[in-house]
């Protein structure tokens, strides 16, 4: 029995660097897993990965594309983080993003006369309200009736996307758009300017400011304290006199609002119109980003750039005949390895003798 074996031992508190290491390793392992998969399907992983990396980070154009893709990921990821912190499974960021884009487009298309200093704030406000309210559609039944918000928020994604499709294929279709599913372009006042001479729009600044604000809300504010306690233990929260129902509504609204801002930043910053297929699944990727960033705003920002790069790299490899889906496969794998790695937070692996009983 006393052979030298590897075994797991429960640990008390995990050191802080471990979380970072696990996150990093999970990305590495996912890429290794992807490499095996690529080899099995007859591709050279070194070529594919260097193509991806080059596309995302190898040129000024690639970098600015990566940063641009990081913006909606960051915003939706921050929104996810705050909800997940309270163990509210808002996985409806995709739909909330679409609703934000829809509301902002309404302002831009139907009130083109507004001056820029009113137009953009009005668009953002509309997006915040639309994204937030869309999240409330799952939050209200959850808060008052205990209805599973995971399923409802996810299903609402389909509804939101179909709603936008209805508009861009129907009443809002640009008559001069050669029958493409998109609206007329926004007036200039409804377009987010670029930062300096780059091709990156000001949504980036909004995302970074949002991250800082969220950090203070979550870690320093009285409200953030309530969110953390509720996420850890509902019983303790009630015992401490917190109103859980109100917090469910507030947190879901805020979470949806962040996704809504992601939506307006896409239409006002990039497409300058509402169109079919506005998001290539930013709302879903954001879930992984939030989890990989351990729900910490700063980490979410950093991970967003990484995943922005992954998306851009995904477009690059399509030129080599690989499907864009490669990227979602890699994303799923990252999350798998991350979840598996989290075991190391609770156990340590020891090599040694396991005495006695066994």
């Amino acid at each position: 029995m006393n052979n030298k074996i590897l075994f797991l031992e429960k640990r008390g508190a995990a050191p802080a660097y471990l979380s970072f290491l696990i996150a990093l390793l999970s990305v590495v392992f996912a890429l290794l897993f992807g490499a095996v998969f690529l080899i099995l399907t007859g591709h050279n992983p070194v070529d594919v990965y260097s193509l991806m990396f080059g596309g995302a980070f190898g040129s000024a154009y690639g970098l600015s594309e990566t940063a641009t893709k990081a913006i909606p990921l960051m915003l939706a990821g921050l929104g996810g983080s705050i909800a997940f912190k309270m163990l509210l499974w808002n996985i409806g960021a995709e739909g909330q993003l679409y609703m934000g884009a829809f509301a902002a487009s309404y302002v831009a298309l139907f009130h083109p006369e507004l001056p820029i200093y009113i137009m953009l704030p009005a668009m953002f406000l509309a997006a915040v309200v639309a994204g937030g309210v869309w999240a409330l559609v799952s939050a209200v039944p959850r808060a008052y009736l205990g209805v599973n918000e995971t399923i409802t928020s996810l299903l609402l994604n389909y509804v939101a996307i179909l709603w936008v499709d209805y508009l861009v294929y129907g009443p809002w279709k640009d008559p001069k758009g050669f029958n493409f599913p998109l609206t007329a372009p926004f007036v200039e006042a409804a377009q987010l300017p670029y930062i300096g001479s780059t091709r990156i729009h000001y949504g980036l600044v909004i995302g970074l400011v949002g991250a800082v604000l969220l950090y203070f809300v979550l870690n320093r504010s009285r409200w953030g304290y309530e969110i953390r306690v509720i996420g850890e233990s509902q019983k303790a929260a009630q015992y401490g006199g917190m109103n859980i129902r109100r917090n469910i509504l507030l947190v879901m609204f805020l979470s949806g609002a962040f996704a809504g801002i992601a939506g307006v930043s896409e239409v006002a910053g990039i497409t300058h119109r509402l169109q079919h297929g506005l998001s290539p699944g930013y709302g879903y990727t954001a879930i992984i980003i939030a989890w990989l960033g351990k729900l910490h705003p700063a980490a979410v920002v950093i991970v967003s750039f990484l995943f922005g790069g992954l998306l851009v790299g995904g477009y690059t490899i399509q030129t080599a005949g690989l499907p864009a889906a490669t990227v979602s496969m890699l994303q799923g794998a990252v999350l798998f390895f991350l979840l598996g790695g989290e075991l190391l937070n609770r156990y340590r692996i020891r090599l040694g003798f396991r005495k006695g009983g066994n």
Partner: protein
Amino acid sequence: MDGNMLIGILAAAVTAGTPLLYAALGEIITERAGILNLGVEGMMLTGAVTGFIVAVSTGNPWFGALAAILAGGAVSLIHAILSVTFQANQVVSGLALTIFGTGLSGYLGKSYIGIPAPQTFSKFPLPVLADIPLIGPVLFNQDALVYFSYLLVPVIWFYIYKTKHGLNLRAIGENPGAADAVGINVFVLRYIYVVIGGMLAGLAGAYLSLAYAPAWLENMTAGRGWIAVALVIFATWNPLKAVGGAYLFGGVDALGYRMQAMGLDVSSFFLKMLPYIFTIIVLIFATTQTNKKHIGAPGALSLSYDREER
């Protein structure tokens, strides 16, 4: 609305409900074992693409269905490892599985988009039974996989409620500590039932790509995996009730297409929204009812079991 049209809609409801039924049956088994698997959508997509590819390469849809079952089981194994052995958060692991399955199916199926399925599961009337008025044309003029589901439902029901293994299954989902204490291997059984759930989800996917709409399209499940998860709650984890639920949801799905065909003046986008909105409303209703009657989810659902947890 005349009789023929009603029969048409009801028969279409059964067809459209069958993939939901398979997926929901799988999820019922998984959740009964105490594991929440939100990766149904991903497992269905994996099954759909694998089934289609194998059916195209072998020319036999049965091989396709078999491959889909194996593929669904294989990807669900990842969820089993993470949630049973690694005690990971089951909600996140399930989401990861959905994202992974979406990507995997898109990757594998890329060169199969637009290819017609050579051989599919086609409808054939069952002798004698098909001649029963109303019931015959609705239930017994279907394809082989629908008939198979008729057999599977009572078998699963009997297994869960009337056999020793079913008792063990329910016990590990209600109170794994109690099951463990009497020598039931909670870990192995949870693995098995997660994989069985994945196999049925894989078959549900194959039904879509080989029978319902025989072709491969990226994301062709279109949220049916999630509707199946909602259906489990609606059915209060009972396979018999899942049948009614599945056909009801299938009916809403079918109705949308019928109304369009009838030239109803409603945008097709709104009709396509119907199943999702209907699911949300039903979920709200079902949750209120189960809360009232104190029949809820299996007691240990989505909680990992750790024998030495103090």
